[in-house]
Protein backbone atom coordinates (compact mmCIF):
# COMPACT_ATOMS: atom_id res chain seq x y z
CA UNK A 1 0.00 0.00 0.00
CA UNK A 2 1.17 3.49 -0.84
CA UNK A 3 0.11 6.62 0.94
CA UNK A 4 0.34 10.19 -0.26
CA UNK A 5 -0.40 13.54 1.30
CA UNK A 6 -1.45 15.90 -1.44
CA UNK A 7 -1.30 19.60 -0.67
CA UNK A 8 -3.09 20.84 -3.76
CA UNK A 9 -5.11 19.97 -6.83
CA UNK A 10 -1.90 20.08 -8.88
CA UNK A 11 -0.28 17.54 -6.56
CA UNK A 12 -3.29 15.25 -6.72
CA UNK A 13 -3.04 15.35 -10.52
CA UNK A 14 0.70 14.62 -10.28
CA UNK A 15 0.06 11.55 -8.15
CA UNK A 16 -2.42 10.36 -10.77
CA UNK A 17 0.11 10.92 -13.56
CA UNK A 18 2.75 8.88 -11.73
CA UNK A 19 0.36 5.98 -11.37
CA UNK A 20 -0.74 6.27 -15.00
CA UNK A 21 2.87 5.72 -16.09
CA UNK A 22 2.71 2.13 -14.81
CA UNK A 23 -0.49 1.24 -16.68
CA UNK A 24 -0.38 -1.42 -19.37
CA UNK A 25 -4.05 -1.39 -20.31
CA UNK A 26 -7.01 -3.18 -18.79
CA UNK A 27 -6.58 -1.58 -15.36
CA UNK A 28 -9.66 -0.88 -13.25
CA UNK A 29 -9.42 1.87 -10.65
CA UNK A 30 -11.91 2.08 -7.80
CA UNK A 31 -11.95 5.58 -6.33
CA UNK A 32 -13.46 5.86 -2.87
CA UNK A 33 -14.02 9.09 -0.98
CA UNK A 34 -16.61 11.67 -0.02
CA UNK A 35 -17.76 14.66 -2.09
CA UNK A 36 -14.97 17.14 -2.73
CA UNK A 37 -12.05 14.89 -1.79
CA UNK A 38 -10.39 14.95 -5.21
CA UNK A 39 -11.67 11.94 -7.14
CA UNK A 40 -12.51 13.93 -10.25
CA UNK A 41 -9.26 15.91 -10.09
CA UNK A 42 -7.38 12.63 -9.87
CA UNK A 43 -9.19 11.49 -13.02
CA UNK A 44 -8.33 14.80 -14.70
CA UNK A 45 -4.68 14.02 -13.89
CA UNK A 46 -4.96 10.66 -15.63
CA UNK A 47 -6.52 12.36 -18.63
CA UNK A 48 -3.68 14.89 -18.78
CA UNK A 49 -1.17 12.07 -18.76
CA UNK A 50 -2.94 10.43 -21.69
CA UNK A 51 -3.12 13.80 -23.47
CA UNK A 52 -6.90 13.82 -23.68
CA UNK A 53 -7.91 17.27 -24.98
CA UNK A 54 -11.56 17.20 -23.96
CA UNK A 55 -12.42 18.50 -20.49
CA UNK A 56 -13.15 15.65 -18.09
CA UNK A 57 -16.57 16.66 -16.82
CA UNK A 58 -18.53 14.96 -14.10
CA UNK A 59 -20.22 11.75 -15.29
CA UNK A 60 -22.64 11.77 -12.35
CA UNK A 61 -25.59 12.47 -14.63
CA UNK A 62 -24.90 10.05 -17.49
CA UNK A 63 -23.05 7.44 -15.36
CA UNK A 64 -20.34 6.82 -17.94
CA UNK A 65 -18.21 8.90 -20.26
CA UNK A 66 -15.64 7.36 -22.61
CA UNK A 67 -12.65 9.43 -23.79
CA UNK A 68 -10.52 8.42 -26.78
CA UNK A 69 -6.76 8.30 -26.27
CA UNK A 70 -4.73 9.24 -29.31
CA UNK A 71 -1.33 8.57 -27.81
CA UNK A 72 0.77 6.00 -29.59
CA UNK A 73 0.30 3.26 -26.99
CA UNK A 74 -1.84 0.17 -26.47
CA UNK A 75 -4.28 2.03 -24.28
CA UNK A 76 -7.03 3.48 -26.48
CA UNK A 77 -9.73 4.71 -24.15
CA UNK A 78 -10.22 6.18 -20.69
CA UNK A 79 -13.64 5.22 -19.34
CA UNK A 80 -14.87 7.47 -16.54
CA UNK A 81 -17.71 6.06 -14.46
CA UNK A 82 -19.59 7.58 -11.53
CA UNK A 83 -21.73 5.46 -9.19
CA UNK A 84 -22.92 8.41 -7.09
CA UNK A 85 -26.53 8.07 -8.23
CA UNK A 86 -26.55 4.28 -8.27
CA UNK A 87 -28.15 2.03 -5.73
CA UNK A 88 -27.14 -1.25 -7.35
CA UNK A 89 -24.67 -2.32 -10.04
CA UNK A 90 -27.49 -3.45 -12.34
CA UNK A 91 -27.70 -0.28 -14.35
CA UNK A 92 -23.97 -0.24 -15.06
CA UNK A 93 -24.02 -3.86 -16.12
CA UNK A 94 -26.82 -2.94 -18.50
CA UNK A 95 -24.69 -0.30 -20.21
CA UNK A 96 -21.86 -2.75 -20.65
CA UNK A 97 -19.61 -2.34 -17.60
CA UNK A 98 -18.18 -5.83 -18.08
CA UNK A 99 -17.34 -5.23 -21.73
CA UNK A 100 -15.50 -2.03 -20.83
CA UNK A 101 -13.59 -3.82 -18.06
CA UNK A 102 -12.66 -6.86 -20.17
CA UNK A 103 -11.27 -4.79 -23.02
CA UNK A 104 -7.53 -4.55 -22.36
CA UNK A 105 -7.31 -1.35 -24.39
CA UNK A 106 -9.34 0.47 -21.74
CA UNK A 107 -8.49 2.12 -18.45
CA UNK A 108 -11.65 2.15 -16.37
CA UNK A 109 -11.87 4.73 -13.57
CA UNK A 110 -14.83 4.40 -11.23
CA UNK A 111 -15.87 7.02 -8.69
CA UNK A 112 -17.91 5.85 -5.68
CA UNK A 113 -16.73 2.36 -6.65
CA UNK A 114 -17.51 0.92 -3.20
CA UNK A 115 -21.15 0.86 -4.26
CA UNK A 116 -20.46 -1.76 -6.93
CA UNK A 117 -17.58 -3.59 -5.24
CA UNK A 118 -19.29 -6.95 -5.78
CA UNK A 119 -19.09 -6.82 -9.56
CA UNK A 120 -15.55 -5.40 -9.85
CA UNK A 121 -12.55 -7.64 -10.65
CA UNK A 122 -10.31 -8.90 -7.84
CA UNK A 123 -7.31 -6.97 -9.13
CA UNK A 124 -9.12 -3.61 -9.03
CA UNK A 125 -6.74 -0.90 -7.82
CA UNK A 126 -8.49 0.71 -4.86
CA UNK A 127 -7.70 4.35 -4.14
CA UNK A 128 -9.05 6.07 -1.05
CA UNK A 129 -9.45 9.84 -0.76
CA UNK A 130 -9.88 11.77 2.48
CA UNK A 131 -9.74 15.40 3.52
CA UNK A 132 -6.44 16.26 5.25
CA UNK A 133 -5.93 18.42 8.31
CA UNK A 134 -5.68 21.64 6.36
CA UNK A 135 -8.21 22.86 3.81
CA UNK A 136 -6.46 21.94 0.58
CA UNK A 137 -4.81 18.79 1.90
CA UNK A 138 -5.94 15.34 0.88
CA UNK A 139 -4.87 11.88 2.04
CA UNK A 140 -4.65 9.46 -0.84
CA UNK A 141 -4.16 5.75 -0.15
CA UNK A 142 -3.52 3.25 -2.91
CA UNK A 143 -4.09 -0.46 -2.30
Amino acid at each position, binding site marked *: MKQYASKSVTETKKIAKNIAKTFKGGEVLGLVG*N*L*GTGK*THFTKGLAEYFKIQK*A*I*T*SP*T*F*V*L*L*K*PYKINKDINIKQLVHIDCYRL*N*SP*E*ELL*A*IGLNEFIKDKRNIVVIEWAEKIKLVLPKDTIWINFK*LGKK*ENEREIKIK
Partner: protein
Amino acid sequence: MKILGIETSCDETAAAVLKVERGKFNLLSNNVSSQIKTHAKYGGIVPEVAARMQIEMILPVIQESLKEAKTKLKDIDYISVTNGPGLVTSLVVGVETAKTLSFVLNKPLIPVNHLIAHLLANHLENKKISYPAVGLIVSGGHTMLVLIKNESKYKIIGETQDDAVGEAFDKVAKMLNLGYPGGPAISKLAINGDRDKFKLPRPMIQQQNYNFSFSGLKTAVLYLTQNKKFKKTKQQTIDLCASFQQACVDVLISKTLRAIKEYKPKSFLLGGGVAANPELRKQLKEKINKKFPKVKIFIPELRFTGDNAAMIATAAYFKTKDKKKIDIKKLKANPNLSL
Protein backbone atom coordinates in the same frame (compact mmCIF):
# COMPACT_ATOMS: atom_id res chain seq x y z
CA MET B 1 -49.63 19.12 -38.59
CA LYS B 2 -49.47 16.98 -35.46
CA ILE B 3 -46.19 15.88 -33.89
CA LEU B 4 -45.81 13.24 -31.21
CA GLY B 5 -42.87 13.98 -28.92
CA ILE B 6 -41.12 11.33 -26.83
CA GLU B 7 -38.48 12.06 -24.19
CA THR B 8 -36.71 9.46 -22.04
CA SER B 9 -33.20 10.82 -21.63
CA CYS B 10 -32.97 10.41 -17.87
CA ASP B 11 -35.41 9.69 -15.05
CA GLU B 12 -38.56 11.09 -16.62
CA THR B 13 -40.73 9.36 -19.16
CA ALA B 14 -42.53 11.99 -21.19
CA ALA B 15 -44.79 12.27 -24.22
CA ALA B 16 -46.61 15.17 -25.83
CA VAL B 17 -48.80 15.93 -28.81
CA LEU B 18 -48.10 19.26 -30.49
CA LYS B 19 -50.30 20.75 -33.20
CA VAL B 20 -48.67 23.34 -35.45
CA GLU B 21 -50.75 25.42 -37.83
CA ARG B 22 -49.27 28.27 -39.86
CA GLY B 23 -46.28 28.33 -37.54
CA LYS B 24 -48.46 28.65 -34.42
CA PHE B 25 -47.87 26.11 -31.67
CA ASN B 26 -50.83 24.54 -29.93
CA LEU B 27 -49.83 22.04 -27.28
CA LEU B 28 -52.59 19.44 -27.07
CA SER B 29 -51.05 17.36 -24.30
CA ASN B 30 -47.83 17.15 -22.33
CA ASN B 31 -47.28 14.31 -19.84
CA VAL B 32 -44.41 13.40 -17.57
CA SER B 33 -44.54 10.00 -15.90
CA SER B 34 -43.91 11.24 -12.39
CA GLN B 35 -47.01 13.41 -12.64
CA ILE B 36 -49.66 11.51 -14.50
CA LYS B 37 -52.51 9.84 -12.68
CA THR B 38 -51.89 6.50 -14.32
CA HIS B 39 -48.61 6.25 -12.50
CA ALA B 40 -49.98 4.30 -9.56
CA LYS B 41 -52.03 2.09 -11.85
CA TYR B 42 -49.15 1.08 -14.09
CA GLY B 43 -46.03 1.85 -12.15
CA GLY B 44 -46.83 0.38 -8.78
CA ILE B 45 -43.64 0.33 -6.83
CA VAL B 46 -41.11 2.65 -8.41
CA PRO B 47 -38.11 0.52 -9.33
CA GLU B 48 -34.59 1.64 -8.58
CA VAL B 49 -33.49 1.48 -12.14
CA ALA B 50 -34.62 4.37 -14.30
CA ALA B 51 -34.56 2.34 -17.49
CA ARG B 52 -36.86 -0.33 -16.15
CA MET B 53 -39.32 2.34 -15.11
CA GLN B 54 -39.06 3.85 -18.59
CA ILE B 55 -40.09 0.55 -20.15
CA GLU B 56 -43.08 0.26 -17.86
CA MET B 57 -44.14 3.85 -18.32
CA ILE B 58 -43.49 4.63 -21.97
CA LEU B 59 -46.64 3.14 -23.52
CA PRO B 60 -49.09 4.35 -20.84
CA VAL B 61 -47.58 7.83 -21.07
CA ILE B 62 -47.90 7.93 -24.87
CA GLN B 63 -51.46 6.60 -24.64
CA GLU B 64 -52.40 9.19 -22.04
CA SER B 65 -50.98 11.96 -24.22
CA LEU B 66 -52.92 10.83 -27.27
CA LYS B 67 -56.11 10.49 -25.26
CA GLU B 68 -55.75 13.94 -23.76
CA ALA B 69 -55.02 15.38 -27.19
CA LYS B 70 -58.08 13.55 -28.57
CA THR B 71 -55.79 12.29 -31.29
CA LYS B 72 -55.52 8.83 -32.82
CA LEU B 73 -52.09 7.42 -33.49
CA LYS B 74 -52.86 7.29 -37.21
CA ASP B 75 -53.52 11.05 -37.24
CA ILE B 76 -50.01 11.85 -36.06
CA ASP B 77 -47.85 13.26 -38.88
CA TYR B 78 -44.40 13.00 -37.32
CA ILE B 79 -42.85 10.97 -34.52
CA SER B 80 -40.07 12.79 -32.68
CA VAL B 81 -37.74 11.50 -30.00
CA THR B 82 -34.71 12.53 -27.96
CA ASN B 83 -31.74 10.54 -29.26
CA GLY B 84 -29.21 12.09 -26.88
CA PRO B 85 -27.46 13.14 -24.77
CA GLY B 86 -28.46 11.29 -21.63
CA LEU B 87 -28.44 7.98 -19.87
CA VAL B 88 -28.02 5.34 -22.56
CA THR B 89 -30.32 2.72 -21.01
CA SER B 90 -33.08 5.29 -20.67
CA LEU B 91 -32.55 6.85 -24.11
CA VAL B 92 -32.78 3.46 -25.79
CA VAL B 93 -36.34 2.96 -24.52
CA GLY B 94 -37.60 6.14 -26.18
CA VAL B 95 -35.60 5.70 -29.37
CA GLU B 96 -36.65 2.09 -29.92
CA THR B 97 -40.29 2.90 -29.15
CA ALA B 98 -40.23 5.80 -31.61
CA LYS B 99 -38.56 3.67 -34.29
CA THR B 100 -41.19 0.98 -33.88
CA LEU B 101 -44.06 3.48 -34.10
CA SER B 102 -42.50 5.11 -37.12
CA PHE B 103 -42.06 1.77 -38.85
CA VAL B 104 -45.50 0.39 -38.05
CA LEU B 105 -47.38 3.61 -38.85
CA ASN B 106 -45.14 4.53 -41.75
CA LYS B 107 -44.66 8.07 -40.44
CA PRO B 108 -41.39 9.98 -40.60
CA LEU B 109 -39.17 9.90 -37.54
CA ILE B 110 -37.33 12.99 -36.30
CA PRO B 111 -34.46 12.55 -33.82
CA VAL B 112 -33.95 15.55 -31.57
CA ASN B 113 -30.97 16.76 -29.56
CA HIS B 114 -32.20 17.16 -26.01
CA LEU B 115 -30.05 20.24 -25.37
CA ILE B 116 -31.23 22.46 -28.20
CA ALA B 117 -34.79 21.38 -27.40
CA HIS B 118 -34.46 22.95 -23.94
CA LEU B 119 -33.84 26.31 -25.64
CA LEU B 120 -36.36 25.93 -28.47
CA ALA B 121 -39.02 25.24 -25.80
CA ASN B 122 -39.26 29.03 -25.61
CA HIS B 123 -41.17 28.95 -28.93
CA LEU B 124 -44.11 27.17 -27.25
CA GLU B 125 -45.49 30.49 -26.04
CA ASN B 126 -45.81 31.72 -29.64
CA LYS B 127 -43.87 34.92 -29.05
CA LYS B 128 -41.73 36.06 -31.93
CA ILE B 129 -38.12 35.12 -31.28
CA SER B 130 -35.58 36.91 -33.44
CA TYR B 131 -32.23 35.34 -34.18
CA PRO B 132 -29.30 35.28 -33.65
CA ALA B 133 -29.71 34.48 -29.98
CA VAL B 134 -27.50 33.55 -27.09
CA GLY B 135 -28.84 30.59 -25.13
CA LEU B 136 -27.98 29.42 -21.63
CA ILE B 137 -28.70 25.77 -20.81
CA VAL B 138 -28.65 24.96 -17.11
CA SER B 139 -29.54 21.49 -15.82
CA GLY B 140 -28.39 18.56 -13.75
CA GLY B 141 -26.19 17.26 -16.52
CA HIS B 142 -25.25 20.38 -18.48
CA THR B 143 -24.24 24.00 -18.15
CA MET B 144 -23.45 25.71 -21.43
CA LEU B 145 -23.72 28.87 -23.45
CA VAL B 146 -24.87 28.43 -27.02
CA LEU B 147 -24.83 30.79 -29.98
CA ILE B 148 -27.96 30.19 -32.03
CA LYS B 149 -27.93 31.51 -35.61
CA ASN B 150 -31.38 30.13 -36.29
CA GLU B 151 -33.55 27.21 -35.17
CA SER B 152 -31.34 24.68 -36.91
CA LYS B 153 -27.89 26.28 -36.71
CA TYR B 154 -26.12 26.61 -33.39
CA LYS B 155 -22.82 26.05 -31.64
CA ILE B 156 -21.50 25.79 -28.11
CA ILE B 157 -19.42 28.80 -27.06
CA GLY B 158 -18.70 27.70 -23.51
CA GLU B 159 -19.53 24.96 -21.02
CA THR B 160 -18.72 23.59 -17.62
CA GLN B 161 -15.27 22.12 -17.18
CA ASP B 162 -16.37 19.83 -14.32
CA ASP B 163 -19.78 19.66 -12.61
CA ALA B 164 -23.06 20.96 -14.01
CA VAL B 165 -24.78 23.67 -11.95
CA GLY B 166 -27.77 21.44 -11.17
CA GLU B 167 -25.41 18.76 -9.97
CA ALA B 168 -23.73 21.28 -7.63
CA PHE B 169 -27.17 22.15 -6.19
CA ASP B 170 -27.90 18.44 -5.64
CA LYS B 171 -24.58 17.73 -4.00
CA VAL B 172 -24.67 20.78 -1.74
CA ALA B 173 -28.21 19.81 -0.73
CA LYS B 174 -26.88 16.39 0.16
CA MET B 175 -24.13 17.89 2.34
CA LEU B 176 -26.79 19.88 4.19
CA ASN B 177 -29.19 16.91 4.37
CA LEU B 178 -31.86 18.74 2.42
CA GLY B 179 -33.00 15.82 0.29
CA TYR B 180 -33.38 15.32 -3.46
CA PRO B 181 -33.81 17.11 -5.82
CA GLY B 182 -31.54 19.70 -4.31
CA GLY B 183 -32.39 22.68 -6.50
CA PRO B 184 -35.92 23.37 -5.25
CA ALA B 185 -34.91 22.57 -1.64
CA ILE B 186 -32.07 25.10 -1.70
CA SER B 187 -33.96 27.85 -3.52
CA LYS B 188 -36.88 27.55 -1.10
CA LEU B 189 -34.68 27.91 1.97
CA ALA B 190 -32.61 30.64 0.32
CA ILE B 191 -35.63 32.99 0.21
CA ASN B 192 -35.17 33.83 3.88
CA GLY B 193 -31.39 33.61 3.89
CA ASP B 194 -28.67 36.24 3.82
CA ARG B 195 -26.78 35.78 0.57
CA ASP B 196 -23.80 37.80 1.79
CA LYS B 197 -23.39 35.83 5.01
CA PHE B 198 -20.83 33.36 3.69
CA LYS B 199 -18.04 34.32 1.31
CA LEU B 200 -17.94 31.73 -1.45
CA PRO B 201 -15.82 31.71 -4.60
CA ARG B 202 -17.15 32.61 -8.05
CA PRO B 203 -15.11 30.08 -10.05
CA MET B 204 -13.76 31.24 -13.43
CA ILE B 205 -15.70 34.51 -13.27
CA GLN B 206 -12.62 36.54 -14.23
CA GLN B 207 -11.58 34.29 -17.10
CA GLN B 208 -12.06 35.82 -20.52
CA ASN B 209 -14.15 32.93 -21.85
CA TYR B 210 -17.62 31.41 -21.58
CA ASN B 211 -16.70 28.34 -19.55
CA PHE B 212 -17.92 27.44 -16.09
CA SER B 213 -16.71 25.45 -13.11
CA PHE B 214 -18.80 24.42 -10.13
CA SER B 215 -16.72 21.70 -8.52
CA GLY B 216 -14.58 24.15 -6.51
CA LEU B 217 -17.68 25.95 -5.27
CA LYS B 218 -19.06 22.63 -4.03
CA THR B 219 -15.78 21.95 -2.22
CA ALA B 220 -15.82 25.45 -0.67
CA VAL B 221 -19.26 24.67 0.76
CA LEU B 222 -17.90 21.36 2.07
CA TYR B 223 -15.09 23.16 3.93
CA LEU B 224 -17.60 25.59 5.42
CA THR B 225 -19.83 22.82 6.70
CA GLN B 226 -16.85 21.10 8.30
CA ASN B 227 -15.63 24.23 10.02
CA LYS B 228 -16.22 24.18 13.79
CA LYS B 229 -17.97 27.55 13.60
CA PHE B 230 -20.64 26.01 11.41
CA LYS B 231 -23.19 24.51 13.80
CA LYS B 232 -25.78 23.56 11.17
CA THR B 233 -28.38 25.71 12.87
CA LYS B 234 -31.47 26.51 10.83
CA GLN B 235 -30.34 30.09 10.28
CA GLN B 236 -26.84 29.08 9.22
CA THR B 237 -28.24 26.53 6.80
CA ILE B 238 -30.58 28.97 5.11
CA ASP B 239 -27.85 31.62 4.94
CA LEU B 240 -25.51 29.09 3.36
CA CYS B 241 -28.22 28.12 0.83
CA ALA B 242 -28.69 31.78 -0.09
CA SER B 243 -24.94 32.40 -0.35
CA PHE B 244 -24.35 29.30 -2.46
CA GLN B 245 -27.26 30.04 -4.78
CA GLN B 246 -26.04 33.61 -5.27
CA ALA B 247 -22.54 32.37 -6.14
CA CYS B 248 -24.03 30.15 -8.87
CA VAL B 249 -26.32 32.90 -10.15
CA ASP B 250 -23.47 35.43 -10.25
CA VAL B 251 -21.25 33.20 -12.38
CA LEU B 252 -24.06 32.22 -14.76
CA ILE B 253 -25.12 35.84 -15.25
CA SER B 254 -21.61 37.18 -15.60
CA LYS B 255 -20.71 34.72 -18.39
CA THR B 256 -24.07 35.27 -20.08
CA LEU B 257 -23.54 39.06 -20.12
CA ARG B 258 -20.05 38.53 -21.53
CA ALA B 259 -21.50 36.40 -24.34
CA ILE B 260 -24.21 38.94 -25.12
CA LYS B 261 -21.63 41.72 -25.22
CA GLU B 262 -19.43 39.78 -27.62
CA TYR B 263 -22.02 38.27 -29.97
CA LYS B 264 -24.62 41.09 -29.91
CA PRO B 265 -27.65 38.79 -30.27
CA LYS B 266 -31.23 39.97 -30.77
CA SER B 267 -32.55 37.55 -28.15
CA PHE B 268 -31.53 35.63 -25.08
CA LEU B 269 -33.01 32.19 -24.38
CA LEU B 270 -32.88 30.28 -21.10
CA GLY B 271 -33.55 26.56 -20.79
CA GLY B 272 -33.11 23.46 -18.63
CA GLY B 273 -34.19 22.28 -15.19
CA VAL B 274 -32.27 24.96 -13.29
CA ALA B 275 -34.15 27.58 -15.35
CA ALA B 276 -36.88 27.00 -12.75
CA ASN B 277 -34.72 28.70 -10.12
CA PRO B 278 -36.60 31.91 -9.18
CA GLU B 279 -33.50 33.96 -8.35
CA LEU B 280 -31.78 33.02 -11.60
CA ARG B 281 -34.89 33.98 -13.59
CA LYS B 282 -35.31 37.27 -11.75
CA GLN B 283 -31.70 38.40 -11.72
CA LEU B 284 -31.00 37.36 -15.33
CA LYS B 285 -33.94 39.48 -16.47
CA GLU B 286 -32.89 42.47 -14.38
CA LYS B 287 -29.23 42.39 -15.41
CA ILE B 288 -29.80 41.83 -19.13
CA ASN B 289 -32.52 44.50 -19.21
CA LYS B 290 -30.22 46.95 -17.52
CA LYS B 291 -27.10 46.34 -19.60
CA PHE B 292 -28.61 45.36 -22.93
CA PRO B 293 -32.14 46.81 -23.06
CA LYS B 294 -32.53 45.94 -26.74
CA VAL B 295 -32.06 42.20 -26.20
CA LYS B 296 -35.38 40.35 -25.88
CA ILE B 297 -35.38 37.86 -23.01
CA PHE B 298 -37.15 34.50 -23.26
CA ILE B 299 -37.52 32.35 -20.17
CA PRO B 300 -39.66 29.21 -20.42
CA GLU B 301 -42.76 28.64 -18.31
CA LEU B 302 -41.94 26.48 -15.30
CA ARG B 303 -43.59 23.39 -16.80
CA PHE B 304 -41.18 23.55 -19.77
CA THR B 305 -37.99 23.90 -17.72
CA GLY B 306 -37.52 20.30 -16.56
CA ASP B 307 -37.33 17.43 -19.02
CA ASN B 308 -40.51 17.28 -21.09
CA ALA B 309 -41.66 16.05 -24.46
CA ALA B 310 -43.34 19.29 -25.59
CA MET B 311 -39.89 20.75 -26.18
CA ILE B 312 -38.89 17.69 -28.21
CA ALA B 313 -41.92 18.05 -30.49
CA THR B 314 -41.19 21.78 -30.82
CA ALA B 315 -37.58 21.22 -31.81
CA ALA B 316 -38.75 18.52 -34.22
CA TYR B 317 -41.09 20.98 -35.95
CA PHE B 318 -38.11 23.03 -37.09
CA LYS B 319 -36.64 19.88 -38.63
CA THR B 320 -39.79 18.94 -40.56
CA LYS B 321 -38.57 21.17 -43.39
CA ASP B 322 -35.39 19.11 -43.76
CA LYS B 323 -35.45 17.15 -46.97
CA LYS B 324 -33.18 14.40 -45.69
CA LYS B 325 -35.15 11.40 -44.53
CA ILE B 326 -33.97 9.51 -41.47
CA ASP B 327 -33.18 5.85 -41.96
CA ILE B 328 -34.87 4.38 -38.91
CA LYS B 329 -32.77 1.25 -39.00
CA LYS B 330 -29.64 3.32 -38.57
CA LEU B 331 -30.88 5.63 -35.84
CA LYS B 332 -29.35 4.88 -32.46
CA ALA B 333 -29.43 6.48 -29.03
CA ASN B 334 -26.26 8.48 -28.47
CA PRO B 335 -25.54 9.16 -24.78
CA ASN B 336 -22.70 11.57 -25.61
CA LEU B 337 -24.46 13.44 -28.42
CA SER B 338 -23.06 16.95 -28.70
CA LEU B 339 -24.70 20.08 -30.05
